[in-house]
């Protein structure tokens, strides 16, 4: 009993100290001072979407490298990662906390679409810059939001580019699509349709699928009987693996083509039991063993600074989503202010690091319309089929 009481008192004391330490007010809320610039990112580190958490940790690598090289005009980047468990309520909480208590200058990345939409207006009201959301959501940048800059290619543009590749390079005429019944899948469908219309071709089969469906036998049989030679998939990883396994069982072997969200080949190869080999996907970044000097540099840096990380597509994507803010901070000069950085961001033109060429103007905050086309080789390796390709039909550019 006495022992218990002691433990209890000790526990309460520890909690109280933590509370007080935690509630200590931040020195300034300007987002930066002479020594540091504070940048934040939310992303699922735990919970059901945890595999995408590597994006937020990838951005950390970039900031670590920048800091190693002396920071930006003497200011180091202080980077906050906050786990929102893919839950918009928590996204809103961590964002408000970072803005109001830590004082954050800008946000980069951010995986969940719902989380992003939950904080979009709040960030704009508080004049916090947000660069490179790690999802493609049209509402982010159409109509243009003064503080929000997107790097991620639209699914529509990607599907259009992939369809062009199927028709003109692979010379396949009968194309089917398996798409998830939500905005992600439908945007992919729109891109495919747009491209096929220019060729005056029609779809062999269009099959919607619910993201939770576990039995795809009827869908795959419909695709098989339609005789589609290539099938575009805009589905989630689980559905894709089920589709491939079902197709293998019924002896249906089309050319599978899919989106950048499924471009983590080592992972897909593993969970599909090797069936992923030969699948073609788009991608928003260079392949992991690219010879691009910057990719080589970051790969070396990752080995040194975070040896526990797997050097994969999503990890390096964290770098490319965060790149524009570093560039803009450098361009904005010694006298840092939100206005100066906004001006620098709006002036970015054909800026390319390890992703597509990015350009922003005051009226256009969708930075890119380009993807690379890759194919999964043996053991989940990457084969590059076609370099950066823009969508010549992109509707938003007109």
């Amino acid at each position, binding site marked *: 009993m006495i022992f*218990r009481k002691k*433990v*209890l008192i000790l526990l309460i004391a520890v909690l109280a100290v*933590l*509370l007080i*330490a*935690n509630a200590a007010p931040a020195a300034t809320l300007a987002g930066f001072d002479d020594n540091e610039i504070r940048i934040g990112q939310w992303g699922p*580190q*735990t*919970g*059901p979407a*945890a595999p995408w*958490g590597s994006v937020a*940790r990838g951005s950390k690598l970039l900031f670590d490298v920048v800091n190693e090289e002396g920071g930006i005009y003497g200011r180091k980047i202080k980077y906050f*990662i*906050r*786990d929102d*468990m*893919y*839950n*918009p*309520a*928590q996204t*809103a*909480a*961590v964002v*408000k*906390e970072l*803005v*109001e*208590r*830590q004082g954050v200058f800008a946000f980069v990345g951010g995986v969940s*679409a*719902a989380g992003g*939409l*939950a904080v979009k*207006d709040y960030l704009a009201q508080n004049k916090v810059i947000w660069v490179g959301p790690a999802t493609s959501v049209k509402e982010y940048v159409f109509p243009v939001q003064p503080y929000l800059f997107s790097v991620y290619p639209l699914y529509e543009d990607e599907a259009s580019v992939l369809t062009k590749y199927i028709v003109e390079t692979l010379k396949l005429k009968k194309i089917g699509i398996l798409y998830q*019944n*939500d*905005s992600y899948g439908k945007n992919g469908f729109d891109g495919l349709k747009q491209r096929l219309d220019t060729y005056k071709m029609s779809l062999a089969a269009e099959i919607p699928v*619910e*993201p*939770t469906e576990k039995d795809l036998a009827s869908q795959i049989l419909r695709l098989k009987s339609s005789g589609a030679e290539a099938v575009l998939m805009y589905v989630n990883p689980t559905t894709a693996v089920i589709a491939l396994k079902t197709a293998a069982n019924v002896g249906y072997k089309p050319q599978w083509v899919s989106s950048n969200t499924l471009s983590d080949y080592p992972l897909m190869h593993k969970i599909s039991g090797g069936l992923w080999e030969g699948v073609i996907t788009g991608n928003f970044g260079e392949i992991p063993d690219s010879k691009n000097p910057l990719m080589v540099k970051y790969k070396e840096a990752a080995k040194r600074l*975070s040896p*526990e*990380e797997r050097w994969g597509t999503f990890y390096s994507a964290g770098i490319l989503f965060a790149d524009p803010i570093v560039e803009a901070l450098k361009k904005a000069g010694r006298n840092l202010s939100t206005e100066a950085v906004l001006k620098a961001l709006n002036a970015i033109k054909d800026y390319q690091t390890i992703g597509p060429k990015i350009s922003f103007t005051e009226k256009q905050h969708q930075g890119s319309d380009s993807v690379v086309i890759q194919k999964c080789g043996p053991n989940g390796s990457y084969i590059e089929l076609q370099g950066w390709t823009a969508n010549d039909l992109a509707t938003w550019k007109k």
Partner: protein
Amino acid sequence: MDMKRDYYEDIQLFQSGVVLAWTVALLLVLFTIPLYTPNYYVYLLNIIMVHVILAVGLNILVGSTGQISLGHAGFFAIGAYGTVLLMTLLQIPFVFAILIAAFIAAFFGFILGLPALRLEGPYLAIVSMGFGLTIMHIIGGVDAFGGRMGIKAPPLDLGIKQLGISWILKTDFQKYYLILIMTIIMVVGARNILKTRVGRSFVAIKDSDIAAEVIGVNLTIYKTLAFAVSAFYAGIAGGLFGFVLGFFDPFTFNMILSIIFLVMVVVGGLGTILGGILGATLITYLQYDLLKNIAEIPYFGALMVAVSKQWFTMVGLENISSMAIGLIMIGIIIFEPLGMFGVWIRMKKYWMTWPF
């Protein structure tokens, strides 16, 4: 100490002048908090109070009636979606929309209560879990509900548009008062339910449903009623939650959330009103604030980062938060089965008998 001499003494809202004085003091603090705290904490308090309403309701079911539910995120979702959709699609004023949505949730609670007549323990847990997941996926599959992309809550208008009265709450600060008043009403309501014949029937069912039936408690009515009441609370909480967030998708209401709700009730103390309040407050605060900011705590933060880097996965510090919640749960069950309510009772006893 807490000896009751007659029934009327038991149902009194304030047991003594001291309790009344402290309650008034607490209410004063609660009503003035937003005046001297930064906006971020007001948002956090809003979330906490929403969770308090839900946990108090869940405690009526789990703690007082002894039925388990791993599907409360489903009722929470019905409340949130119901309120917003009734307002946007049918132009129903907020006050009525949230009530209708809560009654819809209560109806679903009644439906879920039916299998509970035959199922117990783990089987009931599985059924309720299935219910929660089903609701999440059904909402996600209907485009009119916003599908998987989620929906945006309309402006929170307390007036009635049709009569030309409009009173829009915009900031977290304004919403705080609405939610605070709702929370007080719901908590007092829960306390009163438990002091009536209905509440005593619930407790009788928890102790032994056969014995309860023998002394004349209609199991069919009271078990389904417990589910309905609990779901009603979750519905009201959900309706408020939608406006605290402003935007939500079906995945917001996933199974992890149901489990966290249950953790709140267990950590707070099963079967007591105060337990629900304490549990919801502590767990929400830990989850949303303290555990997210470990790295920023001087010295201790750096130590934890090093520990995490040395022994746990690359996710880093987030490991610590998950483990902390788990450890608290295990610790409570081993050392303090009555939860934080038990700690409270002991503290109270210590001070009341002080210095002996």
